[in-house]
């Protein structure tokens, strides 16, 4: 293992994050505050408890997931797309670095950043509603697994995209709608049977449900299914990354 290279890429990516600290952290924090003002106070006050949890507290795991998914995808996709765009990827390809080391360092940096933002959002939420985490170990596991899994998706997106438009298209047109419709702000159990069945095809449902279970001990689907689906996505994205490096897709001519 070329640990020096992993450290170099990881530090390089994290220093990029530090350069854009304001944009990286202030923006999701402001969004979270707005969600709480609108959903938690303005609308949430009129919504009864869901599964014995006040609506303000109910949306906390969903809000964290919303940012976690979006940040993981956009951080990782930008991290690998930018060297492709500027041409500096030549250095990465000509260095004595394995594909595994490249993925570990880029995905690791993207996941770290999104986890930090997730924790900040959680802390921000704590200013509005009393936080109660029933299973902190599971909460950390879901946080880390989701950050890594969706950073892998971002990495794939960054390799696939051949322009900034495509880079933004997937988070905007796919990730955000799936998160909104994935039970972030409501329980899918309150949906009519048909739409509940449709929702079960949305992968984000399982992530939000498992994460919410770690907070309140209740979820839309069982913990085992949530964990299983999260691991399934992780394996699927790993397989795609392995294929990319095996074939050199959009990296090596």
């Amino acid at each position, binding site marked *: 293992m070329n640990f*020096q290279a992993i450290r*170099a890429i990881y530090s390089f990516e994290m220093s990029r994050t530090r350069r854009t600290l304001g944009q990286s952290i202030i923006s999701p924090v402001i969004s979270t505050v707005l969600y709480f003002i609108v959903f938690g106070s303005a609308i949430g006050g009129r919504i009864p408890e869901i599964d014995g949890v006040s609506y303000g507290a109910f949306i906390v795991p969903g809000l964290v997931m919303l940012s976690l998914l979006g940040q993981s995808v956009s951080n990782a996709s930008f991290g690998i797309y930018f060297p492709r765009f500027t041409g500096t990827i030549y250095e990465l390809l000509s260095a004595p670095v394995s594909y595994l080391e490249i993925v570990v360092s880029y995905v690791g940096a993207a996941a770290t950043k999104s986890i930090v933002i997730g924790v900040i959002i959680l802390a921000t939420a704590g200013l509005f509603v009393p936080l109660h985490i029933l299973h902190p170990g599971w909460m950390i596991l879901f946080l880390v697994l989701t950050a890594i899994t969706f950073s892998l998706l971002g990495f794939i997106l960054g390799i696939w995209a051949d322009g900034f438009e495509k880079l933004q298209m997937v988070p905007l047109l796919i990730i955000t709608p799936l998160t909104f419709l994935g039970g972030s702000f409501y329980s899918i159990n309150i949906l009519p049977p048909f739409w509940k069945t449709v929702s079960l095809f949305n992968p984000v449902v399982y992530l939000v449900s498992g994460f919410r279970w770690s907070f309140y001990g209740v979820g839309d689907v069982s913990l085992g299914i949530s964990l299983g689906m999260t691991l399934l996505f992780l394996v699927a994205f790993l397989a795609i990354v392995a294929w990319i490096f095996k074939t050199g897709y959009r990296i090596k001519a």
Partner: protein
Amino acid sequence: MNAIISITNLSKSYATGFQALKDVSLEIRKGEIFALLGPNGAGKTTLISTTCGIVRPTSGSVTVDGHDIIKDYRAARSLIGLVPQELTTDAFESVWNTVSFSRGLFGKSPNPAHIEKVLRDLSLWDKKDNRIMTLSGGMKRRLLIAKALSHEPKILFLDEPTAGVDVNLRRDMWALVRALRDSGVTIILTTHYIDEAEEMADRIGVINQGEIILVENKVELMHKLGRKQLTVQLHQAIEYVPESLAAYRLELMTDGTELVYRYDTRADQTGIASLLAALGKAGIDFKDLQTKQSSLEDIFVSLVREGQ
């Protein structure tokens, strides 16, 4: 001298069907400066990119100091520093950070003293904290060299190192390249400036349409293929070359006041003595003589034309 890079029957076809390299075999000797010449699209950058691991070979093999570039890529790549043709840099990063990053990428532990030496050698020390976007084109070019030297490579690839660089900086770079060679680094450079190859290289390879058409010691090449030209300046202009001088294939130039005679330096007899005697017999007086060796550029152009 031992080969540090061995390229054997290397071919590269792109997905478009374009064959950039055709069965190329080449050996680069340890400690030499090797200049790879060729017109645009000849395959120079593909050859470098394949050796460095950026492009996958279609067939053939490349070893770097005995390490196969695919099976033993870590050992092979750690010996190589690459300065690409394009000025590709992280615009928002500082000079110091980007050079330190390159060193780490190649698996070397941090060594601020070495980074400082490299930056000082390349006159970039004053700019170490500057963002790359604030540097001039020449500075960016030097920065790319600094990045390539950050991990103390044994082999340095310079792809068009002086493109767009002013005359003074070019000379500084030549001096730097010579100093690197003197310290034991093997240099492979591609260039469009033939005078650069003539000035710097120990050996020259010419590539055209994906094929190596010649590899030769520079001095030998110029000796073997070089042609000389004798210009005879006449006292009085003449209207035509007399029939008695037809065997010399003279060319009448400058309104009939100069006769140009081209001869092969390899021939036993250059024919100059007999030509001068024949001129006297024909009653043509001359006031001066001038000889000129054909340049590497002339040789290169004629080789590429022959290849086409």
